[in-house]
């Protein structure tokens, strides 16, 4: 279920910033960005964002504004920039370029909206075939009985992953990554060359498989494991390099 992030009337950080910029009156003695930054910050303080990605988008724009604003408080030229730091003027140009690009699509979206509005007055005929033509259709239910459909439904309802009932009130059983990690190492010690599928063959649910996957990545990162995959979505083959379980745990978990 995606988060419904409705940031009042604004559809994101660029939308908000463009709006503030348009409202901004230009006083030639003012430093324009100071006022905009102030308004922007006070706005994002008020809004409640539940989505991390959206939040970081707003914060990134905010920090860029602050950076540009502070540039004029500092001595003319800074030569102490970090290697990966963008000079304020460059940051300003980047921000403007993104605003310009975004506005182009926003304008296009308004034109699409107008088109949709006028199109919504055209109705198509959504009526089935006349009876006499219906008979022509092959009987696609010929070999199907109503019982077949019932059996299919039972299959879905009793399938592990098809739990469509609201379970938000149930506390999920936490899976201990460390525990899985230890089990994975033991399995790999017993059989040094095996596929990821083999390793997770007895997993009861997706969460468990994911936990194994994380364990594998951790082992790989620490050079305890070689990984290979011949083709996209193909089998992940693993080769475990001999170490004691203790060594591995110590390397990864520090105990």
């Amino acid at each position, binding site marked *: 279920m995606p988060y419904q992030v409705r940031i009042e009337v604004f559809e994101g950080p660029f939308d908000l910033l463009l709006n503030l910029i348009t409202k901004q009156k230009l006083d030639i003695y003012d430093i324009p960005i100071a006022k905009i930054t102030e308004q922007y910050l006070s706005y994002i303080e008020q809004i409640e964002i539940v989505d991390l990605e959206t939040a970081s988008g707003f914060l990134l724009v905010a920090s860029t504004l602050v950076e540009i604003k502070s540039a004029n408080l500092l001595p003319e030229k800074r030569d102490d920039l970090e290697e990966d730091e963008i000079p304020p003027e460059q940051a300003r140009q980047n921000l403007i370029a993104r605003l310009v690009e975004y506005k182009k699509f926003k304008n296009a979206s308004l034109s699409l909206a107008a088109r949709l509005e006028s199109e919504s007055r055209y109705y198509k005929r959504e*009526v089935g*075939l006349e009876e006499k033509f*219906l008979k022509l259709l092959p009987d696609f*239910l010929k070999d*199907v009985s109503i019982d077949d459909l019932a059996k299919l439904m039972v299959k*879905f*309802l009793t399938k592990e*992953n*098809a739990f*469509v009932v609201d379970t938000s009130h149930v506390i999920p059983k936490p899976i201990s990554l460390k525990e899985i990690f230890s089990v994975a190492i033991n399995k790999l010690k017993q059989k040094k060359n095996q596929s990821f599928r083999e390793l997770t063959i007895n997993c009861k649910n997706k969460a468990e498989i994911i936990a194994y996957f994380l364990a594998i990545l951790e082992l790989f990162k620490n050079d305890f494991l070689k990984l290979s995959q011949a083709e996209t979505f193909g089998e992940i083959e693993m080769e475990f390099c001999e170490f004691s379980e203790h060594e591995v745990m110590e390397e990864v978990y520090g105990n």
Partner: protein
Amino acid sequence: METNVKGILEALLFVADEPLTLKQFVQITGFDTELIEKNLKELAEEYQKGNRGIQLREVADGYRFFTHPAYAPFVEELVLSADYRKLSQASLETLATIVYRQPITRARIGAIRGVNSTGAIASLQEKGLVKEVGRERGPGQPILYGTTKTFLENFGLKNIKELPPLKDFALDEETIDQLQLRLMAEPVEKAKKESKE
């Protein structure tokens, strides 16, 4: 553009999925019966004189457009040209889900089957087995799907209450238990929704 009575009647007849009565025309347009009748008659004549592909006919329960019988062989060709020989497994699964969970949204069908079912739903609609039966309240107002009369007739059912109960099809104890749980859980979900309304 000046609206004209004939145009309005034509548009209504075009989208209607059952014969329209004079009473319905009056209700929708606000014109009086005589005016409507006169225009319907003229419309029917125009279509007939022109050897048009569509004919307006008065049937037992109202007025309705039909294809001209002279062109039936071409229409048959069109109907048969569509690739519908047999139901795919995806279609069958989707059908089963709609049969037992109607009215149901596309999203919930997908959730039950575990895969996007848009294509399968469209194909079932095309075949006249399922149809849109309304819209759910709430955000986005998603379309609700249900089975058609054609579907029920095919299996000799009067209505969906005559469907065989699912618990008759559980194979073993464990399946029965699981099924019970889920069948029990669902009315709760439904009740919740209703109480919100």
